[in-house]
């Protein structure tokens, strides 16, 4: 009887340790996976930042056209946001036609989580609710980005009288992160 009792005790103890250990392992693995996945997102964004060139291509009295060039061809989905200098006002919400991509019609949509860069760190755009962005159409990606050609984004000066910050964004899942940008003044 004594031997059976010891065996039951051992089974109970080992079983308990296994259950606690499995729970602890799951928690730790979840943390590690979360940490590494955020690290991989940082890597992806770092690579995208380093690959993107934004430059002033043409300017007249009514618009400023910026060239956006990806150094290496890639099927990357881009979107563009236009915010006030202090990031507090979504200018595309006020002026839906402020951004144009010559030759195509960018599709406007609202995104809940948009992040901009400040001193190397990402912060959510402090616009209450959704941020309106102009998506760069697939045909532009095929004709320009994948051909290593610069595509154009033009900003109407009527919409940016007090200055504006244009963000070039990439998707990571449903969220958008800044990888390039420009300060626009009328």
């Amino acid at each position, binding site marked *: 009887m*004594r*031997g059976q009792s*010891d*065996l039951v*005790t*051992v089974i109970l*103890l*080992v079983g*308990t*340790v*296994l259950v*606690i*250990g*499995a729970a*602890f*392992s799951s928690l*730790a*693995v979840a*943390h*590690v996976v979360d*940490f*590494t996945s955020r*690290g*991989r997102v*940082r*890597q992806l964004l*770092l*690579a995208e*930042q*380093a*690959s*993107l*060139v*934004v*430059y*002033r*291509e*043409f300017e*007249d009295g009514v618009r400023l*056209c910026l*060239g956006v*060039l990806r*150094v*290496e061809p890639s099927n990357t989905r881009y979107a563009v946001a236009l915010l006030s200098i202090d990031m507090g006002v979504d200018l595309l919400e006020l002026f839906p036609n402020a951004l144009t991509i*010559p*030759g195509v019609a960018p599709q406007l949509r609202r995104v809940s989580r948009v992040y901009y*860069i400040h*001193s*190397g760190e990402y912060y959510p755009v402090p616009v209450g609710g959704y941020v309106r962005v102009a998506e760069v159409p697939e045909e532009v990606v095929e004709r320009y980005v994948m051909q*290593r*050609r*610069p595509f*154009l984004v033009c900003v109407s000066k009527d919409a940016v009288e007090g200055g504006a910050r244009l963000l070039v964004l990439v998707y990571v899942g449903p969220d958008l992160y800044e990888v*390039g940008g*420009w*300060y626009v003044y009328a």
Partner: protein
Amino acid sequence: MRSLRRGQAEVVGGVIAVSVLLLSVAAVYFLLTSTQSTVAAELSRRTSFESERSSERLAVVYDPGLGRCVLKNVGPIPVEVVRLWYGGDPVDLEEPAILQPGEQVTQVAGVDVEVVEVAVTRRGNVVSLRSSCEEARGGTYGGGPHPFSSENVLDYAKTSRGIAEGYLYVNVTKSATKPYAYAVVYKPAENWLCSSKDNKAQYESVPNWDNWNLDRDGNGIRELIIIDSSSCPKNPGDVEELKLGKGYDSVSVLFVFKNLLEITGEEDTITVYFKFVVNISKEGVPHEVSFLPIVTVSKGSTRLSAPASTATAGSKGLAIVSGYAVFPLRSFNLRIGSGVYDLLIELKLSPGRSQSIDIDYVRLEYVAVVGARFYNPWR
């Protein structure tokens, strides 16, 4: 059974804890190494791209024989024009117009060069054709800043566009001693030279400046030479170039372009190019001297420094040290404010195989900045 009872649970728990710890450490380690390699690879790729981009040079030249402007590739690499602007609208070229080095054309994709407002290259350079043509014809000026800084910036005939406080001086430091030689060589609205050892500039007019030959090696480019500030010449014919001498374990020559670099804060990348000519004494050969150039952009407490990518060539007694330093402001979040900055180019010379170095002269023959406005210190 006694052995079963003791320590079984502890061993199982310990194995689980150690496994989780190892897994966590391994995951973090691999993430860090992967991040490091990504950063290195992306920086290398971007630097290579910027180097190519900066090498693209398209010039609009007026050809008196043709009586019109031509577009010429004056750079070392082929240039592909992918978009033109004329009539206020962009026109994408299905087939890029490729200009080989040295090639010149009067039309791009069937469009007259003089009609095109702007040509855009595949690497994202923008060239204003019509306004450049008007400039080349001697017509109106002011078509905006040229996308490329020119070489031969030491040509005094170019204009600085007037930064009131801009000037250039040189510090020479041997080993750990204080700078002993200064040569302030510019002051606006006056002829120039010279300086004092306490770094308080004293300027003097130099008569017949236009006749002063600064092209010491006769290659068509005026070098910046270093003179001893204690022997400021009144006459161009009396100028004596500072000989650095021998017996030192290192020499540092610092060229300071004070308040001559204008940054708007919108720059993507700034690249600084330079070329030194170093006269090593008769007995020396270039590989016995180690050259380390460092480029710095500074203003107040803001200071960005980069060791330059350098190539050295030479034969007995002479070394050419040319290179460039890249400041990827945008890509790596080096956000700095707009304003007028100092550009510092330092060349450190130290012995290679020998115990000490023996240098005659150090001359700066070329300096150019791409991505920001660099003012000529000579006017």
